[in-house]
């Protein structure tokens, strides 16, 4: 198991290197630069600024210098924000994103698996159709529609929850963004759980358990759910990626100080260093989470064991 983890991490390094390289050069071939402003700079000022950010050097030099900096733990100055370095911005943004993202994942798993199980147990009844219908709606409505809709209803009309803002991460402020982030994942997870649950409930060992007179609650929770959870666990990797990309939209709409927002703003502002740092953190996060999912799979499924 330990050797497996080490191997996986070693394999992640070239992956990260490729991602960093591609991102660096793609960012640079995009037309327009960080200092193309609606108020053009005078030549002497532009030259000074470009020199300060090494933009006057050939691209391969800039790349090597950047990689060198990153390896020594320096993510560089932001091209846009002068008063904070990229590392400071990430340190400020990451906890916020983590908080919303983690809450959304937990909510998605709990509600999604709960609804999925319910639908499977009441298969082909109105409960089943209603849950799955709702799930389809959750999948099809994009978050940039759902978010304004929910804020309009709960923020403006009912005035129950704040429309936007971080407010030091107060629960009240997190409710709507977390729900918007979790909704599509709830829908996917509910559908996955229902599907595998229906299959598992028809399996021989469940029939055996029931035949032995085991209470239905134990049959469902202890035996069926564990097996039915496998597809959900393998879906957690894509779910995390979905939540990360969702946070890009949600953080902007809810005015939350997270990393996803830096990704959008950074790309639009051509804030090269900030975008690179978000790419690195996102890539590392997805690699690590996929590893965790694989390990978890080994724990849940005896057929998969990591030597």
């Amino acid at each position, binding site marked *: 198991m330990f050797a497996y983890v080490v191997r996986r991490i070693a394999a992640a390094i070239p992956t990260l290197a490729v991602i960093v390289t591609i991102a660096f050069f793609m960012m640079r071939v*995009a*037309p327009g630069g960080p200092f193309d402003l609606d*108020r053009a700079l005078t030549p002497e000022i532009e030259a000074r*600024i470009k020199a300060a950010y090494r933009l006057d050097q050939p691209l391969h030099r800039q790349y090597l210098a950047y990689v060198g900096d990153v390896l020594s733990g320096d993510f560089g100055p932001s091209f846009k924000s002068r*008063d904070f370095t990229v590392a400071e911005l990430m340190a400020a943004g990451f906890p916020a994103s983590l908080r919303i993202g983690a809450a959304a994942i937990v909510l998605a798993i709990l509600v999604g698996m709960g609804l999925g199980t319910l639908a499977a147990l009441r298969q082909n009844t109105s409960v089943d159709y209603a849950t799955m219908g709702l799930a389809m709606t959750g999948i099809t409505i994009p978050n940039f529609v759902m978010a304004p809709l929910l804020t309009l209803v709960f923020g*403006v009309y009912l005035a129950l929850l704040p429309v936007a*803002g971080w407010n030091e991460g107060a629960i009240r402020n997190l409710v709507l963004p977390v729900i918007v982030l979790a909704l599509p994942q709830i829908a996917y997870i509910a559908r996955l759980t229902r599907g595998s649950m229906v299959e598992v409930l028809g399996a021989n060992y469940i029939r055996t358990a029931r035949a032995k007179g085991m209470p239905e609650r134990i049959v469902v929770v202890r035996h069926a759910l564990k097996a039915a959870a496998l597809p959900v666990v393998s879906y957690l990797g894509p779910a995390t990626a979905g939540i990360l990309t969702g946070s890009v939209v949600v953080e*902007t709409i809810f005015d*939350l100080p997270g990393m996803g927002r830096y990704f959008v703003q950074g790309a639009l502002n051509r804030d090269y260093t900030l975008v690179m740092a978000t790419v690195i953190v996102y890539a590392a996060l997805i690699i690590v989470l996929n590893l965790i999912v694989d390990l978890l799979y080994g724990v849940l499924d005896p057929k998969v064991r990591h030597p």
Partner: protein
Amino acid sequence: MFRTALMAGALALAAAFSPTLAPAQSTLRVANMGEPESLDPHFVSGTWENRIIGDLFLGLTTEAADGSVIPGSAERWAISEDGRVYTFKIRSHKWSDGQPVTAADFEFALRRILAPETTAKYASLLYPIKNAEKFKKNETKELGVKTVGADVLEVTLENPTPYFLAQLTHYTAFPVPKHAVEKHGKDWVKPGNFVSNGAYVMTEWQPSSHVKTVKNPNFYDAANVKIEAVIWYPGEDRAAATKRFRAGEIEVATDFASDQIELLKKEIPKETRISPYLGIYYFAFNTAKKPFDDVRVRQALSMAIDREAITDKVLKTGEIAAYSFVPPGTDNYGEPAYVAFKGQGYDANKKKAIELLTAAGYGPGKPLKITIAYNTSENHKKICIALAAMWKELGVESELFNTEVKVHYNNLNEGAFDVGRAGWIADYNDPQNFLFLMQTSSGKLNYAKYSSPGFDKLMDEANRTVDLKKRAAIMREAEAISMRDLPNIPIYYYVSKNLVSPKVKGWIDNTKDIHRTRWLSLG
């Protein structure tokens, strides 16, 4: 008797306690439409930064509640006969840490922003100061700024610059605390190190969440500052900011989306404030490129635009159709020089436009083909579609070319466009701040690459002229040339759009859209 005494006692008690009860809700919350790049006045370039920084620092001159120029850090000044030497008497006042503000702080600030190694994007705004441009280019160590006494600052200019006092309200001319900058270096703007001389001081800045500023007890006029604290939310999403406003989470939103205007006018008409703004929305022709080097083509295309249709049917937010480059109501000017076809009627103009195009060699057999470039925005898109439709009436075939903002301005700067959308918001209230965009010497800012010796000569002459009336006449003559040559075609004069809660008192709509918090109060 006893009862009256009791009543009186209760009243006295109430009176004694009421001052502590009164300022309970005295925090102003603003959706500022942008995250500041910095709070160091030398390193910013946006209106959203100006809103915060102008609360934090007090320039030699400053803005009154209505945006007009009034004494700030300087309590008075004298101007030499030739209009080139300004002697400022700095008022006795303190930085927020208790240190006195001196003339040396101003000299330090001006030398800092103009130093060759300072990467200040907007330093060129100070080039009217003697030797400033050469100083920036590292060609001289002399600068026309001198500390004459602890509280006397002397500034010498290249030319008599009648807008200089107005320009001093701009953040590029704000003082910075020499002692704090020398002690903390770049980190002097961090909460804890931050020192300012304005009505407010910054105490908290959580990136992408908010900036918090609180009343500066050392501000010279602190007795009249009523709002205790301001929270500035970046809030780039205008629709979300509007909703926050409607939910009562913020008192001011500094912009709203035009497409919501009908809803806003119906639901919160009193809070929705639209007011003329010193800015011009225009399209630039690439005059370095055929056929836009032909004045007849430019005139024809400009004439065929039904500007009122754009303002009244497309935008619907009170913008005014523009027939000049300098907006009416600009100081030191009077009536701008309008294009000749103003008021001639759309049909007559269209007929004339077809004649001009025919004379330039275009017609049904050989249609003029152009690309209209704009940066991503619903409004820009709608306007470009309208232009294409209006030009189609002349037999012109237009293609729309949409890019994101950085790419768009890169193309404009590099001359890679036919007709490109642009806009300009004044930095200071003077016609020069609009007209200079068409001077040859403006380089990249002159997107049209317009170069008219006659226009340039008049602008230089205006720069040397002290008499305001004469100067206005010269500039009007210059504008008349540009409105005949039409390197840029004016479309509309901007309006400012704010949502302001009725709780906010003292808000006066003005053409600079400047509302310093020191003049506001919360009722």
